[in-house]
């Protein structure tokens, strides 16, 4: 009697404890929202300079997949710029996942401090030394003369120049079949192609399905697929093939002519577009504290 009760109490206590074990975090200045390539919370950049910056940074990302963003803050409110900037990096995840090719150019207006935070993937070309020189020789002198637009434009241009060519974008893979036609192609395959093959040989739909599943996927994604995905699709395709092989052996004449509508829908209109200059957010890059700081 007593034992069971004790156990219940202990369990309840453990459950209550679990509730209080949340991570105790949140210190320092809050990281602002990532609103685009240029986040001018400190009101330091003119609209014209901002448009130029955005266009240049968008061009860099299109060409190289490298992401550079600018952040200005009215004040750090007592925080240390290095600590704030790594938190921004962790929150915004600028740069592509796995490549870590992101740069964050952070300026605090009231503290007159700035920092260029560089993702690990770019530290080979944008070394601490390089960012330090850009700060010392390009940005600082202009900021000292209150030529903020020039400082941002030319500093960013140097960051771009140093990082250009270091990364190639992962081919966004122009799909041969756009994803929204996927299902239609699937229907054509199942109701026309497989039954047709079945007439040649009863068991032919099975290997054809196993090959067709992954093939359809590759065609619709432009080749970007993992081995395990393809494996699963091969099995699924095989099962579909098996199903087709198994059904109604008496049904000699299929829906040969009825497929026109489907085939017509493979129009050129379904090619995916290359994407404009709109910002898609951080790509999942990470930071390790590399880069340089300075003040003016």
């Amino acid at each position, binding site marked *: 009697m007593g034992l069971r009760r004790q156990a219940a109490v202990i369990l309840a206590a*453990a459950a209550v404890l679990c509730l209080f074990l949340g991570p105790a975090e949140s210190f320092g200045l809050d990281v602002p929202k990532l609103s685009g390539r240029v986040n001018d919370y400190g009101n330091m950049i003119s609209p014209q300079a901002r448009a130029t910056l955005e266009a240049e940074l968008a061009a860099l990302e299109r060409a190289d997949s490298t992401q550079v963003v600018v952040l200005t803050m009215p004040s750090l409110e007592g925080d240390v710029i290095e600590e704030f900037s790594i938190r921004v990096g962790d929150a915004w995840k600028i740069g592509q996942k796995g490549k870590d090719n992101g740069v964050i150019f952070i300026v605090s207006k009231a503290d007159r401090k700035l920092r260029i935070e560089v993702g690990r993937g770019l530290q080979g070309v944008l070394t*601490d030394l390089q960012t*330090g020189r850009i700060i010392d020789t390009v940005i600082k002198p202009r900021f000292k003369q209150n030529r903020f637009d020039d400082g941002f434009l030319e500093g960013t241009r140097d960051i771009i120049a140093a990082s250009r060519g270091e990364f190639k974008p992962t081919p966004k893979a122009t799909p041969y079949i756009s994803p929204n036609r996927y299902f239609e192609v699937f229907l054509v395959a199942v109701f026309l192609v497989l039954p047709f093959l079945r007439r040649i040989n009863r068991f032919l739909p099975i290997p054809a399905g196993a090959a067709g599943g992954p093939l359809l996927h590759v065609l619709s994604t432009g080749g970007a697929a993992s081995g395990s995905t393809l494996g699963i699709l091969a099995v699924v395709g095989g099962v579909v093939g098996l199903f087709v092989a198994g059904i109604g052996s008496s049904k000699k004449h299929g829906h040969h002519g009825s497929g026109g509508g489907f085939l017509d829908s493979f129009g050129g209109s379904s090619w995916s577009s290359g994407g404009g200059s709109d910002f898609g957010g951080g790509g999942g890059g990470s930071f390790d*504290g590399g880069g340089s700081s*300075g003040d003016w």
Partner: protein
Amino acid sequence: MKKYSLFALITVLLALSLLQGCGYNTMQANEESVKAAWGDVESSYQRRADLVPNLVETVKAYAKHERETLAAVTEARSKAGSITVTKAMLDDPQAMAKFQQAQGALSSSLSRLMVVVEKYPDLKANQGFQDLAHQLEGTENRINVARSRYNKAVETFNTSIRIFPNNLTNSMLLHLKLKEPFKADEGAATAPKVKFQ
């Protein structure tokens, strides 16, 4: 026969899901992230050690009279280099204390060197020295980041082996020990301020 094998299958599945519920995998995954975080700590300290000889040479060229300060840096560097903590030693408080002490000594000798440098405007204006200073600054920052990430990983791991029911799983099966975090005191107090303006 058939019934028996079905029973065995269910038992195995049940055992697996119980292990999952007891944190068997979580604890081990957490231990791996502690080890990974330690790898970053080590490499950032190594990076600093690699910078020191160059820095000492550059300073020497301008500040010949600061022999003592320079010798202290070189000595602290070689001492710090001789103490390594492998990933298997992270649960050893003594090894960690020694490591932290040696690296802390290098930090404070470097900050003394940077104070000395203030007396030599020619050196401060030297491009090579400015470049090294930026590199050292970046490296110190990387060390800070790597240390705090390591501490965070240790905290997660230590919590995961202490809470119920993971503590039971651990004491019966895994026998993982608490990992040592970096202590804040000396690192925070004497972290070299490598800034020149």
